[in-house]
């Protein structure tokens, strides 16, 4: 579990506020392939993947709450959905710890799928009139694909932002030692 330090909390808060503002002020106004990218689930998924399930869930809750408040949406809805997205991404790291380069992309697509489908389900349960049409499903699918495409750079930026506040990854430390002139484990043996 990631140790909670003030610097880490501050960076997470700044990231949450920044990402919501960017999403509202710019990204949601840019149409690509007939749909908009959604940075929020990507960011929540990336935090979950980097910091674990609990941090991911809390960050998701916070981002959702801020988004609902700032955008005057139904409060609690985004929070609930992003809690799920952050938690699932974090659990994936904790249980599998996947190392493939494509993992952020898969997690981005998964987080977006949880978010978009979760919104749809919640709206349906809350009785909000949103007809499930082919157009809507196509839009959801397009968003998931678009988010998957931009997941890697978003993950890289989030990682870069949080890295100073994250504990040093033993795997990263080992790789660095080996590639910067340290002895190979074989030669040491």
């Amino acid at each position, binding site marked *: *579990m990631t140790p909670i330090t003030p610097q880490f909390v501050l960076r997470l808060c700044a990231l949450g506020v920044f990402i919501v*503002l*960017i999403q*509202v*002020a*710019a990204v949601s*106004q*840019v*149409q*690509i392939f007939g749909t908009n990218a959604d940075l929020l689930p990507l960011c929540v998924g990336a935090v979950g993947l980097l910091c674990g*399930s*609990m941090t991911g*869930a*809390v960050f*998701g*809750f916070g981002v*959702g*709450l*801020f988004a*609902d*408040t*700032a955008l*005057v949406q*139904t*409060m*609690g*809805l985004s*929070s*609930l959905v992003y*809690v799920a997205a952050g*938690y699932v991404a974090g659990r994936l790291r904790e249980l599998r710890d996947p190392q493939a380069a494509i993992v952020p992309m898969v997690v981005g697509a998964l987080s977006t799928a949880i978010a978009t489908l979760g919104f749809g389900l919640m709206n349906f349960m*809350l009785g909000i009139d949103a007809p499930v049409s082919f157009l809507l499903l196509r839009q959801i699918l397009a968003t998931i694909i678009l988010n998957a495409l931009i997941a890697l750079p978003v993950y890289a930026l989030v990682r870069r932002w949080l890295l100073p506040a994250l504990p040093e990854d033993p795997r990263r430390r080992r790789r660095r030692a080996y590639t910067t002139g340290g002895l190979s484990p074989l030669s040491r043996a």
Partner: protein
Amino acid sequence: MYDKTVRRRRAVLALLVVSSLILLTAYFGESAGGGLHSVQRGIMSVVAPIQEGASRALKPVRDLFGWVGDTLDAKGDLEKAEKDRDAWQKRAIASEDALRQNRHLRQLLDLDTTLGLDQYQPVTSRVIGKSPTVWYQTLDIDKGTSAGVHAGMPVIATDGSGDGTGLIGRVDFVARNAAKVRLITDSKVAVSARVLKNDVFGVVAPKVGDPEDLVLKYTTRDDFVRPKDVIVTTGTTSARGDIQSPFPPGIPIGQVTRVDEEQTDAQEVHLKPFVDLRRVEFVQVLTRRVNGNRE
């Protein structure tokens, strides 16, 4: 230690979910002037200027992406427009082609009526191949023995222009469903002909290599021929039954363009075929010989 961590994680998750559900319930339960709505209004009034500033600051980025999107859309529109254009172009070409074919066939029909060629049982055929050389010696047509076409039969055609109708050659080689027509511009073809207005007789032979030029040979110094005189086939002139012209009489061949060494024994009458042999699309093979091709 592990159990504690798991319990803690589950507790946090449950707390977050419950908080969300409480927020949802409370939000739905309260009126527009309720506490949560007031918080939203307050946050919104704080965030709105930041949002506006961010929106202004990020406008170039939006514009850039918008430009890229518009460009992609425009490219898509362009591709669609190009496809539409190609489709319309194909239809226009097909219409134009149909019109041209119609004109050719009408002229062939007129030729039959004017020259009384019905009695020769003309078989209309489409040109399916042309000699690839500049000599324009042969044409391939899509009718053969199955349609009653045989070697030696005369072939007439129209080129689609107003007066471009007349004799173009004779069938040289026949298969079941195709035939080869040797044109009057081939050196192997000679047609007995006469000047329409004054019955000057001769033989039309090609000026090899120039499909626009034929020569009326064997005229004498006393044969008076002028440019623009019309040359037609003579048909059979011999009284002998075993010498018959393959060409019926009175079929237009061409028009005199010039006369070299006029009024001498070396007089050479040049004529231009009525039919532009490069533009022939349909031909008619005269499949029946009437009265030994005599007038």
